[in-house]
């Protein structure tokens, strides 16, 4: 090497030796001595990524562990939810109404108390559903943004409370003695009709189990639930309420604006002098009319939802065979295996997400501390 710097000459010698060692290793590998030394020769970047991946996996495993641990106390409740969901033929448990919502959650003396404990907010027993309030939006009786309120004679605070529009939904799983299914079925039907409601859907099996969907006037919802509880032993029940007041007010205001707009357009059309103007306005009026009808439809739907509550009833005799037998986890069928695997996967993902919720803030704090310590050390080093 053509240099007068000795260090570079020494370095050349060191590199030559390292190259010779590598050559020997390569020759050994070529001669069939295996690649036992391979790990030593792994590129640094590869090992670097390996370390990151290992750290990430450890972090996720830790998150999953924390997730499982933290979910354990809630297992009983989760079981209750799924029982209710399954019993009522639903796809899963619904979240109860938010705290502060005026949705009444009557306490039950039987069944899944965890449900009640988690959702009960001690509000009124009577639903404020119709309550003498009539949003007659089609007449356009209110100012834009304010629904027409016809509740004369009520105190101001109560009027405010009665503005609420709640869609209520109940689920109940009832077990009756063997042989009582038919009589109980009639009871369910009678309860619905006697309260002014009806059986929307009905599905029975083997004359021992059945799932029914009842539509009951909202005002009678609590009475209906109470009477249904009297049919047999309540295995699980749940009441949910969805507050659609804001949506209702929005739609009402929107409708009023659309009606005003249509009137305005019609006036303009009447005063229009040219055919092109008339045609253009006609198009706009038609478009507005379509939107009015769409909004009215949505309001009607909301009103119906509010006016009538839905109750799903799962009725079964005590020793009726299960509709959906639990899969045999020791010897599952292929479909069961896939389903079990998928459910397990989702549970793990859920646990990881819960665990991350615990870990991420801690990790961020640790990162901030590390950053500060590094900064301080660097400054100290710079100062010394």
């Amino acid at each position: 090497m053509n240099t007068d710097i000795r260090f570079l000459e020494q370095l050349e010698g060191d590199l030559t030796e390292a190259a010779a060692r590598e050559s020997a290793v390569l020759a050994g590998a070529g001669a069939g001595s295996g690649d036992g030394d391979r790990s030593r020769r792994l590129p640094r970047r590869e090992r670097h990524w390996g370390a990151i991946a290992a750290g990430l996996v450890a972090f996720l495993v830790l998150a999953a562990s924390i997730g499982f641990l933290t979910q354990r106390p809630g297992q009983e409740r989760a079981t209750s939810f799924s029982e209710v969901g399954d019993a009522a033929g639903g796809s899963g448990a619904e979240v109860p109404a938010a705290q502060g919502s005026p949705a009444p959650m009557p306490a039950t003396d039987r069944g899944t108390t965890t449900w009640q404990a988690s959702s009960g907010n001690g509000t009124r027993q009577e639903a404020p559903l119709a309550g003498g309030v009539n949003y007659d939006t089609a007449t356009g009786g209110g100012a834009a943004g304010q629904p027409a309120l016809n509740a004369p004679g009520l105190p101001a605070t109560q009027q405010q409370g009665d503005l609420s529009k709640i869609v209520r939904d109940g689920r109940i799983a009832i077990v009756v003695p063997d042989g009582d299914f038919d009589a109980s079925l009639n009871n369910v039907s009678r309860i619905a009709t006697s309260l002014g409601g009806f059986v929307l859907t009905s599905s029975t099996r083997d004359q021992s189990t059945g799932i029914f969907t009842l539509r009951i006037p909202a005002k009678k919802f609590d009475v209906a639930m109470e009477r249904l509880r009297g049919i047999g032993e309540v295995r699980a029940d749940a009441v949910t309420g969805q507050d659609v007041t804001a949506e209702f007010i929005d739609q009402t205001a929107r409708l009023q604006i659309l009606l005003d707009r249509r009137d305005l357009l019609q006036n303009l059309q009447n005063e229009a002098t040219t055919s092109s103007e008339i045609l253009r306005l006609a198009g706009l009026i038609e478009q507005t009319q379509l939107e009015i009808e769409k909004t009215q439809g949505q309001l009607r739907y909301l009103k119906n939802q509010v006016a009538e509550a839905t109750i799903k009833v799962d009725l079964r005799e005590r020793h009726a065979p299960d509709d959906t037998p639990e899969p045999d986890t020791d010897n599952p069928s292929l479909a069961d295996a896939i389903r079990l695997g998928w459910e397990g996967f989702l549970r793990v993902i859920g646990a990881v997400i819960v665990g991350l919720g615990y870990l991420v803030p801690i990790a961020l704090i640790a990162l901030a501390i590390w950053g500060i310590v590094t900064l301080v050390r660097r400054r100290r080093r710079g100062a010394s």
Partner: protein
Amino acid sequence: MPDQRTDTELLLASRDEPEAFTELYRRHAEDLLRYFARRTLDPETAAELTAETFAEAFASRQTYTDKGVNGVAWIYGIARHRLGRFFRHGRVDASARRRIGMPERELPPEDYERIEDLIDFAPIREALSEALETLSPDQRDAMKLRVIDELAYQEVADRLGCSEANARQRVSRGLRKVALMLQERGMQLTTEVEA
């Protein structure tokens, strides 16, 4: 007879023929040392960074693929990375050298001045004068005598009443500190070296 292969060919060949890497080293070692010396201002640090860069390039040569990046540009990429780490941490680690079993060598005394010759101090003298004020008195005096007055190490040692080795150490540490400080201030110390 000199090897006629290009840098890229040498780097690719070194996967199965490690000795080819040595030729690459011979071609570029001094340039890389100059590259580091002009940026760190410190012969010791520049030498260490040179050793570490070649060691890392040697250890990682399997990852190099010819995607249009010249072999030597790839090495300078490693060099920039190492230099960045030095400016962040204020030290040069020997991880790559340890990985391939290379010893960590001290810079021979006679190399200090030779490496300093590679550094062009003229453009940075003014900035250096300001930076010097932040050093300890010992380091500042040594630096002034060596860099500003351009005295030989023996003369610096005589003026300061210390050994030559001690004078070298003071200048080296002072230079390192100044380089780090100027880097933090975002000052460009050197002209670019073609990579």
